[in-house]
């Protein structure tokens, strides 16, 4: 088995056994910062050798995907899940956005197998983070609402995740390629080791969420598995339609299938405070993240090949 998956299982097991294990929060922040910068840098380096204009259709299509997914999820959460409007809107926003951790695991999965992917996927990752948040706020508040959109925009666009990804992209893009070699040991050679540490902590966090699962019942569990499957299908279709390489299609499927647990919760807490944050984080961290990492990625690869 792949060691990074084993690190995740190790974290899950340690968490379920209530072992006294926790990454100091400063380390967790640093580790996730390195992952974001690495993903951005790598993308930026490869983008540098591409014409930018060719990317416009992909960018627009990705924006559309980010608008459509929460609109699909919302009525299901209201009708079948019987959630309050604010809760449904918030969960929908989580699933319309993306999880960088899941993306990183998928990149590692492709790299291990030597499968290539398009250079601009990190850019699409950034782009897919944003629209679902706006849709979520709109679904909760309505258009006429007294939302302070300036604050929402600041919260979203200048949050840690997006700034680090975009910053990495730009640095990679503008860097003299020869000079990049000197920073590779930190940002590229250590990538999988850092990812292993990150997944150990994610296992501990996911395990801590299992406790809330019983409380919120079967619907949430079902949603946390079915919604990614729907996302994966949409992502795969879109990826093929855009003519991405097979690895790129997989990453698009993974992006659509994954649910946010950093950018969206932070934005919702400020913009839709009446939504219960435990609900969406339980689904996203307790169900969807483990599902995608352990079962989803290989499954979506079959899908990519089947629909290819």
């Amino acid at each position, binding site marked *: 088995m792949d060691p990074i998956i084993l690190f995740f299982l190790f974290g899950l097991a340690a968490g379920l056994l209530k072992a006294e294990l926790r990454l100091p*929060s400063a380390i967790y922040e640093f580790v996730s910062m390195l992952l974001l910068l690495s993903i951005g840098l790598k993308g930026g380096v490869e983008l540098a050798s591409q014409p930018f204009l060719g990317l416009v259709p992909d960018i627009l299509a990705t924006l559309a995907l980010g608008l459509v997914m929460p609109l699909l999820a919302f009525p299901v959460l209201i009708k079948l899940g019987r959630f309050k409007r604010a809760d449904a809107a918030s969960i929908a926003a989580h699933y319309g956005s993306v999880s960088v951790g899941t993306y990183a695991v998928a990149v590692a999965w492709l790299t291990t197998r030597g499968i290539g992917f398009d250079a601009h996927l990190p850019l699409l990752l950034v782009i897919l983070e944003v629209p679902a948040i706006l849709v979520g706020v709109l679904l909760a508040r309505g258009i006429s609402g007294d939302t302070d959109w300036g604050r929402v925009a600041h919260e979203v666009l200048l949050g840690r995740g997006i700034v680090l990804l975009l910053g990495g992209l730009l640095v990679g893009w503008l860097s003299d390629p020869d000079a990049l070699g000197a920073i590779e040991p930190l940002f590229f050679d250590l990538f999988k080791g850092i990812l292993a540490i990150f997944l150990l902590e994610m296992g501990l*966090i996911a395990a801590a969420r299992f406790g809330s699962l019983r409380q919120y019942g079967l619907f949430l569990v079902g949603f946390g598995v079915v919604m990614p499957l729907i996302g994966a299908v949409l992502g795969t279709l879109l990826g093929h339609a855009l003519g991405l390489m097979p690895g790129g299609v997989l990453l698009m499927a993974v992006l659509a299938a994954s649910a946010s647990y*950093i950018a969206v919760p*932070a934005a919702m807490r400020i913009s839709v*405070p009446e939504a219960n944050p435990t609900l969406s984080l339980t689904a996203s961290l307790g169900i969807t993240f483990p599902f995608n990492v352990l079962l989803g990625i290989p499954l979506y690869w079959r899908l990519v090949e089947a629909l290819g």
Partner: protein
Amino acid sequence: MNAQSSHTRKLLTVVTEAALEAVLTRDLERLGASGYTIINARGKGSRGVRDAGWETDANIRIEVVCDEPIARRIAAHLQQRYYDDYAMILLLSDVEVLRPGKF
């Protein structure tokens, strides 16, 4: 205001979600506090355990020293604006301050 002068003020202590730090400090200044002190915290209350393991789960503990009317005004504002949607407790007590002109 010699070295030994001293007076009583109110100490308002707020324990709440770390996500509110930026908005709360803006509120405090607007409502007339001359300063504040913030400390990271974890804890448990009616909204369950908040153990700071995860960003959305961290607490902060804010202290504001001010005169009674301002303290009441801040407390009323926080209660009206944030109590329903956020983990938050508010405590008030008396303190003697050494340089009263400051607060």
